[in-house]
């Protein structure tokens, strides 16, 4: 019996080795916010070219850590690294799509877009200063609905997350109390609340818990039929999260390779700009030691060309064409394998 087992294992090893010749596989890990669109793109790309892109959503912090440890071919993060860190590690950072973070609530009788919140009020909720839904500060913003006297259950992320980074950066901008007490990062010390793993976990908790509030990337809110909130934008008008308001947030942004293509899209002035928007990034080594880097770039090049439809179907906003050109230029000039451009 041991002989048959040994033969069987050897057979799988050979099969695996030959399979390795047949299909090219790229591995990437990181942010959960863009995971729905990356996996959809990967599916379509495989059908077209046979190249397998295996993307695992382990959180932006995980993406940064694993690319620095060189255990994956590329990392993905909604939290942009400062240009100093990028240069120190020899990484290129480029955006793929624009995401919008939206607060979601679970209240009886409240549907998507039916509740209104502002930045300072959200900050107070997450600080634990506002504890019940019937609080006058929330009721004042929502004269048209009767808020129940439920206690507010705050849901946040338990893992290191670029979504958290964008959200806490926004709260830090609009609430000095938040900035002083908690600050902005991909993983913070939450004053109150329960932690969910990934955008998935937060969505699941909010769905299951009456009286809860959480923050998720918009695709998760839409796909899970969660009740998202309308937010007050920079000028005070209330905006709904959708592709148009995310696009409006990006209209004034100054994209440039010199800051790692990372302008802030938070709380932008202008009509109907969604206040909590940001780009999501890919991290790739400039000096490649294998053809994998070229494969990664080929994938994202295809995504730039043909992936916009899939992205908008999931409510992600594709980049403006001018930004795509800038990024392509960066690929050609900065990512090298064996001294030649990898792409």
């Amino acid at each position, binding site marked *: 019996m041991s002989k048959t087992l040994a033969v069987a294992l050897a057979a799988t090893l050979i099969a695996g080795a030959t399979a390795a010749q047949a299909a090219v596989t790229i591995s990437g890990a990181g942010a959960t916010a863009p995971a729905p669109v990356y996996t959809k793109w990967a599916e379509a790309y495989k059908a077209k070219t046979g190249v397998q892109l295996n993307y695992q959503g*382990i959180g932006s912090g995980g993406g940064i*850590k694993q690319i620095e440890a060189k255990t994956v071919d590329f990392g993905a993060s909604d939290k942009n690294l400062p240009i100093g860190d990028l240069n120190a590690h020899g990484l290129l950072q480029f955006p793929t799509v624009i995401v919008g973070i939206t607060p979601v609530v679970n209240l009886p009788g409240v549907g998507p877009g039916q509740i209104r919140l502002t930045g300072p009020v959200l900050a107070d909720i997450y600080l634990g200063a506002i504890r019940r839904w019937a609080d006058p500060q929330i009721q004042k913003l929502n004269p048209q609905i009767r808020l129940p006297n439920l206690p507010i259950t705050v849901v946040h992320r338990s893992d290191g997350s670029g979504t958290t980074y964008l959200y806490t950066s926004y709260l830090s901008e609009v609430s000095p109390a938040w900035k002083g007490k908690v600050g902005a990062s991909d993983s*913070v010390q939450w004053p109150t609340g*329960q932690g969910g793993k990934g955008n998935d976990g937060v969505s699941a908790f909010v769905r*299951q818990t009456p009286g809860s509030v959480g923050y998720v990337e918009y695709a998760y809110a839409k796909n899970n039929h969660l009740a998202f909130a309308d937010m007050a934008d920079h000028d005070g008008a209330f905006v709904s999260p959708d592709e148009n308001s995310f696009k409006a947030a990006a209209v004034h942004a100054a994209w440039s390779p010199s800051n790692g293509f990372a302008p802030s899209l938070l709380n932008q002035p202008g009509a109907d700009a969604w206040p909590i928007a940001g780009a999501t990034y890919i991290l790739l080594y400039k000096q490649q030691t294998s053809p994998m880097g070229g494969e990664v770039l080929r994938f994202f090049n295809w995504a730039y060309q043909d992936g916009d439809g899939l992205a908008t179907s999931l409510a992600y906003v594709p980049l403006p064409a001018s930004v795509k050109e800038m990024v392509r230029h960066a690929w050609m000039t900065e990512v090298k394998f064996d001294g030649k451009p990898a792409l």
Partner: protein
Amino acid sequence: MAELSATAPEPARPPKSQRPKGAAIDPLFKICCAASATLILSALTGVMITLALAGWPAFSKFGLSFFTSTEWNPVTDVYGGAGPIVGTLLTAAGALILALPLAFATAVFLTEFCPRSLRRPIGVAVELLAGIPSIVYGIWGLFVFAPLFAQWVEIPLMGWAPPGSIWEAVFSGIPNGSGLLTASIIVAMMILPFIAATLRELLLSVPARVRESAYGVGCTSLEVVWSVTLPYVRRGAIGAVMLGLGRALGETMAVTFVIGNSHDFPHGLFDGGSTIASTIANEFAEATSDMHVAALAALGLVLFLMTFIILTVARLLIGAQKNV
């Protein structure tokens, strides 16, 4: 005389072709076996050394405050592991308190009261319970148990508690069924079959004459078990309990699903918390700063030492019992 002085001829060593085949391999085989045993030793010491080396920076920077502070702040890179450590102890203790009487009662049922025909099926059923993987308990706990617990226990109690009273503070927490209490209950379900199976073996090892003599003088079943059988297997029973405790401390997946993931001390019965295992499972893949990784490894070392000590004592106790 020459023949006498001649020593008896040495028995001729059989020629190589006649020696048993493979005799030369004997020492090699012994070395292979010993090496395998040493491999086990090195795996365990390897785990400990890796955790100690990786976690050292956290211990040296935070010192004793690592064990007393609940501040787990990746922004400022300040880590205090009191939340997960206390959560681990609370969950394990809670699980033990819930599981111990039930396990003991189940073991006694199987040895004393159960009709003979049912003994094997029920015994098998108990051991099947022990074999169910942790992740299945986790998914069952999250999707089936937690909503039921919320609906029938948490929300009624939270709604009943008069505002401002002590009860409101006691029955506070997250109303969706997750939390430290739920985690304790699920872990209790997991360790119950372990303790019950071990206790049953121990109870079966009590010689029949000891029990029969107790019955013979007119003891009731309760008295036989409580005053005669149990003290007889006391050492092993304590060992079984500690074995269950050791397993409860290290439980990861079932706990991660239902514990609520908060680094604070719990303030109410239904509050969320975290354990060392759930913290590592949640945060390791993405801990970027070196100090964050060191803090997680330090927590891992604490868990390792806790389980190591408890399991060693448990095995020694059970071993001593079996040799009696």
